[in-house]
Structure formats: structure tokens, C-alpha cells
């Protein structure tokens, strides 16, 4: 990109391998904090498995609570990673280089965390295999492929496998570099993982072709995954969920929360690993522009959802929406809409704010608070008014076990990302070097302007 400083391959290696080769004190501090929070989650999960779903706040008629909210939230977060990476690769956008790996890795860890919550939600994790795996183990009953709850595992498994392969393919040259820069067991490990990569012209040519192929293949999967997650709701006959726009609405919401999470991750990486020459204000500027479009698209879908429920005069739908728009949920609704649109979008309109990393970090976190609330508002009030008769209405308040496991999910993704950064470079080193190979300067009158040859 135009603000990229001129760096030699040796400088790039040194800067981008720093997180792998050096271990600052802050790494250990973060590691301890995150491990402590993950430990809290392990204790909560142990209680859940030992005593069953009775330790949660789930009760008739609200049988989907924090676990499913968190599942949808983390599947959403996982969306932007691969989407950003795939779209930017396909369009050969030069500013993708420092962003793609962190985004792809976040996809993998978010999906793993999301999948964990479905397993926890069953209350009997060991039996999940019977319900989802397409094999008759002991009971003579096969999973019903006509149920959206069976579509989910197939979509998530495909997306997770594809995302892991996507990360690995682009990681191979950097693993070869790590092999050349390390000694002892680490050298052996990287040597095995890089499969004996040499960096000849044929290998580079194939790697570039693979990046494009995988991008083209994973984009339709990315759309299908959150569509299928939305059908967990949309295919049911529950008022408030049985809505035909749920699939695109969920996909756009996922992109909004995911892109915001990528911004937060970039800001943290830049500060933690001193990557100021690589993750620059211009990157935040570019993603900020993208976020304006996505946030407004999300607002449009949300508006349609609300208006249809209110104007259709269908009693059950109306009742659910009325509950969502009445206190106390009204306050959550206002907070959500403020977090997702009214606060961040006007800020992102200004270039100087989009280039201010602190402001971008805060707004991206605010958006994710809003998106978590959005999932809460979709699930909980709807189930409270699931039945038409008032005597079958109910309430929900999350237990400490559920709250602990939500905290665990954030710590878990953070911990996995931190450990990844200790083992693998968080920015694709070969892609960064490729950017320097293509960078040239040209003169117009008295000006010397930087340019990328391919753009």
C-alpha cells in the first residue's frame, strides 16, 4: 500500500518472526490471565456435566439461552475472517497482506469455540456424537437429515475444515522460513510441517493458484454456514423466528460482528507485537469504510424484520415483537441499535476517526457488544412468548455457570490466538515480501509517488 515503508527481507523476517522467537513479559501475563479465565470455564463445564442442565437458568419455555446465543455469536465472528481473506485475495487487494492470517486464524478458533457451545448446550456432551454423526452406533436410529440441527454440524465441519486448510496452505512458506530460523526440536517441527518446501517457481505458482481456488470455494461455504445457522430458527414454526429474511439477515450480521472483531484483533496485534510498519492506519481506514456499508445493511434487515412483525397484524408475531420493544427489553434494544449503528457509523464517516486506532478499537468492541445483545434479543424474548396462551409464558435469567462459560469463550479464543502467535507468524511473511517486490515509485512532475505494479 502507499504508506508502506521500504523494508528489506531481513527486516521483515526480524519484525514478523519476533513473536515466535522472543517471549516478552506481557506474553506471560496475558497467558496467566487467559488461562485463569479458561480454568473458570472448565470448572463451570465440570459442574454442568456433573449436575446436568439444572445448573443453568434454562427452563420451560426458554430452553435456548446463553449457550446458543454464544454459539450464534461465535459462528458470526468466524465469518469475517475467511470472508475478508477470500474476497481480498480474489480481488488482489494490496492492503490484505497484514490482515489475512489473523482473520483466518480467528475464524478457526471462533468456530471451534462455537461448536463447543452446542456440545455444552446438550448437557450430555458425550452423546452429541449419536445425535449428529451420520452413523447408527447402537440404537438403530439414524440422524434425521431433514432436521436443520443436522445441517448445522455438516456446514460447520465443512467450514472449519476449509478454514484450517486455508490457513495451512498459506502458512507453508512461513513454516519453511521458521525452519531456517530455529534450531533443535522447533526446527524439526517446522521442517515436518513445511513438508520440505523449497520456494521454487513451480511451488510459488501453485500456491498462488491454490489461494485463488480456495478463496473461490470457501466463499459459498461461508454464506451457507450462517444461512444454515439461521435456519435453526427460521425452519421452526416459532413466531418471531419463522421469517424468510433470516438467512441474509444473519449473514450480514455475522459479517458486521466479524469484521469488527478483525479490527479489534489488528489493533491488539499491532500494539502487542510492535507491528506499526505493517498494520497501518490505512488498513483501519479501509476496513472502516467496509464496516459503514455492512452496518447500514444490517440496520436495513433489522428494520424490515421489525416492520413486518408490527404491520403484518399476525397476533403471535406481534406479541413477540411487542415484548422485544417493551421494557426491560426495550433498553437492551436501544443499547443494541446504538452500539451497532447510531454510535459507530457516524464516527466511521470521518477519515480521521477511521485512522485513529484507539477509536477503531473501541467502536469495534462496542459493535460486538451490540451484536451479542442482538442474538440475545432474537432468542430469549421469542421463546418467552413461544406459546399463544399466557399461562405457558415464562422467563429466563442466566446462572453463574452460564455467565462463566460466556467469559470462558472469550478467554478461550484469546488464549488460542496468543498461543498461535507464539508458534506461527501472525502476518504472512512471504506475502509481505511479495508486496515489496511489486512496489515501485514513479514520478509525476515534481512528485515521486509510490505505487503497486499490479493495481
Amino acid at each position, binding site marked *: 500500500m502507499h504508506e508502506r515503508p521500504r523494508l528489506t527481507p531481513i527486516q521483515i523476517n526480524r519484525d514478523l518472526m519476533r513473536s515466535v522467537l522472543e517471549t516478552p513479559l506481557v506474553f506471560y501475563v496475558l497467558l496467566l490471565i487467559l488461562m485463569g479465565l479458561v480454568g473458570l470455564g472448565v470448572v463451570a463445564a465440570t459442574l454442568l456435566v456433573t449436575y446436568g442442565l439444572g445448573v443453568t437458568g434454562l427452563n420451560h419455555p426458554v430452553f435456548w439461552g446463553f449457550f446458543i446465543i454464544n454459539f450464534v455469536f461465535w459462528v458470526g465472528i468466524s465469518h469475517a475472517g475467511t470472508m475478508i481473506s477470500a474476497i481480498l485475495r480474489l480481488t488482489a487487494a494490496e492492503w490484505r497482506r497484514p490482515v489475512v492470517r489473523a482473520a483466518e486464524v480467528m475464524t478457526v478458533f471462533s468456530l471451534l469455540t462455537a461448536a463447543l457451545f452446542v456440545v455444552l448446550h446438550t448437557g450430555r456432551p458425550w452423546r452429541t456424537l449419536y445425535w449428529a454423526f451420520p452413523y447408527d452406533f447402537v440404537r438403530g436410529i439414524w440422524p434425521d437429515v431433514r432436521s436443520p440441527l443436522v445441517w448445522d454440524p455438516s456446514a460447520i465441519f465443512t467450514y472449519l475444515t476449509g478454514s484450517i486448510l486455508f490457513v495451512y496452505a498459506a502458512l507453508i512458506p512461513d513454516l*519453511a522460513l521458521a525452519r531456517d530460523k530455529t534450531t533443535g526440536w522447533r526446527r524439526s517441527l517446522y521442517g515436518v510441517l513445511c*513438508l520440505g518446501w523449497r520456494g*521454487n517457481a513451480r511451488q510459488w505458482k501453485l500456491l498462488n493458484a491454490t489461494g485463488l481456488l480456495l478463496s473461490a*470455494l470457501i466463499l459459498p461455504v461461508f454464506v451457507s454456514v450462517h444461512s444454515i445457522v439461521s435456519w435453526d430458527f427460521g425452519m421452526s414454526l416459532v413466531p418471531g423466528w419463522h421469517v424468510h429474511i433470516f438467512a441474509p439477515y444473519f449473514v450480514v450480521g455475522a459479517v458486521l460482528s466479524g469484521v469488527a472483531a478483525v479490527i479489534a484483533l489488528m489493533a491488539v496485534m499491532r500494539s502487542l507485537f510492535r507491528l506499526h510498519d505493517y498494520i497501518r492506519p490505512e488498513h483501519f481506514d479501509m476496513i472502516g469504510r467496509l464496516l459503514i456499508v455492512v452496518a447500514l445493511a444490517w440496520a436495513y434487515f433489522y428494520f424490515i424484520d421489525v416492520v413486518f412483525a408490527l404491520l403484518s397484524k399476525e397476533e403471535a408475531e406481534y406479541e413477540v415483537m411487542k415484548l422485544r420493544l417493551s421494557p426491560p427489553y426495550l433498553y437492551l434494544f436501544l443499547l443494541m441499535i446504538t452500539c451497532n449503528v447510531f454510535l459507530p457509523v457516524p464516527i466511521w464517516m470521518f477519515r480521521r476517526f477511521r485512522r485513529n486506532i484507539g477509536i477503531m478499537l473501541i467502536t469495534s468492541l462496542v459493535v460486538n457488544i451490540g451484536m451479542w445483545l442482538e442474538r440475545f434479543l432474537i432468542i430469549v424474548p421469542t421463546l418467552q412468548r413461544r406459546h399463544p396462551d399466557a399461562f405457558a409464558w415464562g422467563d429466563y435469567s442466566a446462572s453463574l455457570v452460564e455467565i462463566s462459560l460466556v467469559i470462558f469463550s472469550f478467554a478461550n479464543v484469546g488464549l488460542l490466538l496468543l498461543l498461535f502467535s507464539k508458534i506461527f507468524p501472525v502476518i504472512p511473511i512471504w506475502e509481505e515480501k*511479495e508486496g515489496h517486490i511489486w512496489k515501485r515509485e514513479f514520478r509525476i512532475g515534481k512528485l515521486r509517488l509510490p505505487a503497486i505494479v499490479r493495481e
Partner: protein
Amino acid sequence: MPSVLGLFQSADTAADAADRLQASGFGPTDYEVLTGAPYPEGAFGEDSGDHRLFIFPLGGAMIGFAVGLMVTAGTQISYPLITAGKPILGIPPMFIIMYEGTMLGALIFTIMGVIFESRLPNLSNDLYDSRITEGYVGLVVRCDDDAQADTAQSTLTEAGAEEVKHQGRS
């Protein structure tokens, strides 16, 4: 079979060395260019050969589709329980799982394809230098005999190679 590796500090001198090698009678397939980042194809006049990577995802997609069909149709026919009056073999829900199977097959086979076509895993002990990942360009010349290796070595040295290594000479 002897081989010679010349290390060059810049891409321009490496491209010049490649020209000299061709002038000395070596063909574009007789040498291999090693770099730490991808250069535009043909930057060193090398021949990286054709590949059939694009066939792999197609094959994978077909296998994935077949497995998806088998899983969806097979499980329902094995236990034909009618639920909510829906047909045993409902096309829309089957299509979703077959679609995911198709994409999964294509993704997995793409990676298998790139590994196969890149000749990985490479377990041979070919000439290599870790400075290649620091920006050096390596030219590895595969020779038929020692006399050809001598020619390659002198050509690379004259072209400005910072260091020339060899392997497999008698």
C-alpha cells in the same frame, strides 16, 4: 547426479545468471530458481512446467457429492421414519448436506492437489541455503556429469554469485 547452487543478492543478477546458463547450453528445465517470496512467473526465464491443479477440486467435488448423497439417502432409507408428514427422501434437506459434502470434497482435494503438484512432501536432501529466506535468490543447476557441473559453477561465479555450493560430484 551433481548439482550446483549459486546464491545471488538481487533478482537482477540472478536473472542475468539464468541467461548465461542458457547461453552455456543449459535448458530452462535444467535449473531451479529458489526464492523467499513469489516473483512474477518467468522473471528468471525458468520453466515451471504445466500443472493439473484445477482438476483436483472437480474430482473432490464429485466424490463429496456422492458421499453426501449416500449419507442423506442411505440413512433415511435405512430407517424410514416419517416425521411431520415429510417425504423420506426430501430433496431440499438432502441438497443442503450434499452441497456441503461437495464443497468439502473440493476443498480437501485442492490441498491434496497443491501438495501433489508441488512435489511435496520433499524428503530429498537437495541443495539449499537458509539465506534464500533472507532475500537471496538461489539458482540450482542439475548437471549430468562433473564437466557440466564445472561449467555451471564457473558460469554462476562469473555472473556474480555471492557463493557457489555443489553436491554429488565425484
